[in-house]
């Protein structure tokens, strides 16, 4: 919601921009290669620009490309996008108490602009939802700063990638920079023994189940990891909240 001057004027907005900057460089590199990949896979320049500006979700854009090219049915493409984005459903559950004090259109605008990195950074900075009016404003401004930085980096670099797509060979593999920035985010999230185990199990399952249609291997990875951690919690009577403080 960085288009509202009242939010932009708060110091937390600039703080949110600054904290997001290092992440945004990696995200920008990923956006650049996504822009290249969209045109290279056969989308027209207009379609690529529309996808960049509207969809605003790198992994679901990249997952949709081969399906669009193959002329897959629309429901398959949308269901694939939903599955790839399923992690955001989990994030939205976590973000609900942070946003519910706002009117709906404002919640939706924040939600739409909140990507993986924004979620990770925001919830790390604010472990608890806001309790007072001042905290509400501060948190909203920080979140908006995060979102503004990621949006500008992603959109500008994607558009640059679309423009340069004829000059950057895909074989350079610059898109790997995006994967590497996600490696850092996973390492940061795997902050307890059980979370580390969850990440390893989910990664292994997603690879083993890769043949599943519609990218369901990602859903399978999440499900197996979460259920395994539930079992271990029960078996060893671990409390995830206490584990968090180790």
């Amino acid at each position: 919601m960085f288009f509202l001057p009242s939010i932009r004027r708060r110091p937390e907005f600039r703080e949110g921009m600054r904290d997001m900057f290092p992440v945004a460089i990696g995200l920008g590199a990923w956006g650049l290669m996504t822009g290249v990949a969209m045109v290279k896979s056969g989308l027209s320049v207009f379609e690529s620009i529309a996808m960049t500006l509207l969809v605003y979700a790198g992994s679901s854009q990249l997952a949709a490309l081969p399906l669009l090219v193959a002329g897959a049915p629309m429901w398959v493409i949308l269901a694939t996008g939903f599955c790839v984005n399923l992690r955001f459903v989990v994030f939205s559950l976590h973000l609900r108490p942070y946003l519910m004090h706002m009117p709906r259109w404002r919640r939706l605008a924040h939600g739409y602009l909140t990507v993986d990195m924004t979620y990770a950074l925001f919830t790390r900075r604010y472990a608890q939802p806001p309790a007072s009016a001042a905290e509400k404003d501060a948190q909203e401004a920080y979140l908006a700063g995060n979102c503004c930085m990621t949006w500008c980096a992603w959109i500008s670099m994607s558009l640059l990638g679309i423009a340069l797509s004829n000059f950057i060979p895909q074989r350079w593999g610059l898109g790997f920079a995006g994967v590497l920035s996600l490696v850092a985010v996973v390492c940061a999230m795997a902050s307890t023994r059980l979370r580390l185990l969850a990440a390893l199990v989910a990664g292994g399952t997603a690879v083993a189940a890769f043949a599943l249609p519609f990218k369901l291997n990602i859903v399978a990875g999440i499900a197996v990891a979460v259920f395994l951690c539930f079992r271990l919690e029960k078996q060893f009577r671990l409390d995830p909240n206490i584990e968090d403080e180790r």
Partner: protein
Amino acid sequence: MTQAAGDSDLWTLVVIVGLAGVTVLTRCFFFILDRPWGLPDWAHRALHYAPAAALAAVIAPEIVMTQGHLIATWQDARLYGAVAGAAYFFWRRGVLGTMLAGMAVYLPLHLGLGW
């Protein structure tokens, strides 16, 4: 996409708008409605593990698979790039450093040796 490459067609644009709707739906899933709704206990507990699991599930195939198959060689620049990135993260923290350290290992191997 059913026409010659480079042409825009209505179907593709409708799919793109649909995908934008999916982005809004998934990112806002639990706060679209005003009505408060209690969350089951398992969902609360899943929050501890699901985000790390989801991201790991997205990136693991990007690192160890090619064309839908597990890579059968150690001569793949992505493996060393990812290990270097993770090692940097546990040494110094920071996303940008992780990315630069990983790319510093990945690019020479990928472009120089063709891994």
